[in-house]
């Protein structure tokens, strides 16, 4: 479970024009379930994702990971709760690498390199055996129907293919939590349904899924266990 307590994120704090993107959010995100954060643009969904995903620190408040960061920090007992907001940068990085898999709205694939290299990127700093991770990446790409694009540059992929590469990359380190930011924003309805189908598989595999979306295909899906609505940085329903 991921537990947020009175989390606030203010940009340009202390300057003349501070902006509070997330305002006193208290929320519990259940493990091995699909949680959807919905709301209009600027409601703070993406900012909240970056805070949960250890990509930024909240201005105030606490975030606890319950039994999710055991792989990332070997000294931690698997079920132990971990308060992440006060952790040093290198622990946050380890958690990002092991606990979370990110699927970005713009996919954020690195241009000019191959599909396979993109998927391998999160494994480079781990120092794992190259052949082992390559085999793992190829298997994952194959399962996503991208076997024939292994060596192709990502610049040549369609939107749906690029997203599947981003998914393969998010899964390469076998994270416990998959975070997807507006994953269907650039997909047509059929591809959006396909995406939800993949999420269903991951949910069945025991992954915790956290998705921001204002697409009804996502938040009205029967897969969604919890839908949290946000507006102006605050949670307005769904807690």
């Amino acid at each position, binding site marked *: 479970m991921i537990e947020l307590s009175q989390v606030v994120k203010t940009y340009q704090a202390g300057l003349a024009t501070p902006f509070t993107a997330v305002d006193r959010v208290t929320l519990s995100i259940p493990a091995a379930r699909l949680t959807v954060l919905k709301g209009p643009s600027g409601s703070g969904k993406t900012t909240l994702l970056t805070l949960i995903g250890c990509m*930024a620190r909240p201005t105030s408040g606490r975030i606890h990971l319950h039994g999710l960061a055991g792989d990332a920090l070997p000294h931690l007992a698997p079920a132990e709760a971990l308060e992440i907001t006060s952790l040093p940068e290198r622990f946050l990085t380890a958690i990002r690498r092991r606990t979370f898999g990110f699927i970005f709205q713009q996919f954020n694939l690195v241009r000019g390199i191959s599909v396979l290299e993109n998927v391998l990127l999160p494994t480079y*700093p781990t120092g794992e055996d190259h052949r082992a991770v390559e085999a793992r990446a190829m298997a994952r790409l194959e399962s996503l129907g991208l076997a024939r694009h292994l060596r192709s540059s990502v610049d040549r992929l369609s939107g749906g293919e690029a997203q599947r590469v981003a998914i393969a990359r998010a899964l390469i380190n076998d994270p416990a939590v998959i975070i997807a930011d507006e994953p269907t924003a650039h997909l047509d309805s059929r591809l959006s349904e396909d995406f939800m189908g993949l999420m269903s598989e991951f949910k069945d595999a025991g992954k915790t899924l956290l998705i921001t979306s204002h697409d009804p295909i996502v938040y009205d899906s029967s897969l969604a266990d919890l839908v949290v609505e946000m507006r102006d940085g605050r949670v307005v329903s769904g807690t």
Partner: protein
Amino acid sequence: MRPPLQRYRNILDFALSSLLRRKGRNLALISVYTLVVFVIASLVFFVQALKREAHELLAQAPDMVVQRMVAGRHDPVPLAQVEAIRSIRGVDGVQARLWGYYYDPVFGGNLTVLATEDPALAPDAIWIGQGVARSMRVREGDLIPLRGYDGQSTLFSIQKVLPESSELVSSDLVLMAPKDVRALFHFPEGLATDLAIQAGNPRELPTIATKIVELYPDSRPILKSEILRTYEAVFDWRGGLMVVVLGSAVLSFIIFAWDKATGLSAEERKEIGVLKSLGWESSDVLLLKFWEGTVISVTAFLSGVLLAYAHVFFFSASLFEHALKGWSVLFPRFRLIPALDGYQLTVLFFLTVLPYTAATLVPSWRAATVDPDAAMRS
């Protein structure tokens, strides 16, 4: 614990593939960088090689040369001084030298005419340097006319063209019998251009010089060590002309490196954000940028140094010929002896590779130390 070697290898692999992604930009960067290293390395190699040649040549030179001064100008020395100087304690030998400059109006160059008493030199014959042979388009057995002081031409047969190995000093040389030198220049009997002195113990040279000046107050003794010091002053790369040339080159290189390396594009900044969000530590990003900078700078350094080596030692520094090979129009063609000075290469390495690598790391460090979401949004 992460196997560090594999991590280094993975990041190096990615650095190489990153460089290939921006082929055009990186090739342009390496080309300019190589050019700068080439110019600096050529200068360093060339000057160093010249210094070495000069040292080797001066090893054969007399320990001291004595000139006579009249009104502050160099004037012929009476031969009567030879015996007087030879009698000074410590002097091993005194040789009166007869030489002068001959201006050839046809090809507009100065020749150095030197008298030799080598018995191998045939009467009315001369030996000439390679540069003279090239300029006059003559070879052994040909006859060449030289205009004397009175405007009358005298024909000399070329008995020998001096070997290429001595070209650095003999390019513009014409060797002839003393009587021919005197006839050509109307040089009076009983006088010589200067005196070459050999001493048994080089430590006694300053004392000998003092005694010569006491004996002949209008004389000017020039010690070999003074000539060497002059060479040092002119060619030393930490002083004289070289410091100005090298300083300008290094400064322009630093400006170039700073300009090229400090500007992280928006795409590069975003990539750093993506890598951090995927679990790369700041140190991983810095290692990546370090490898990228190192590959570029070391490639350019090695290419520049190798090209400079070929330029100086195989092509006789042809690009610097007009600037650095003396004042004559008879540029000597010679092959400098290849030599590498580890100290100079190290200094060159630190002057060129370090500024670039540092300039690459600073902006990457700034981008890598911010939160990944900020880097991605920027």
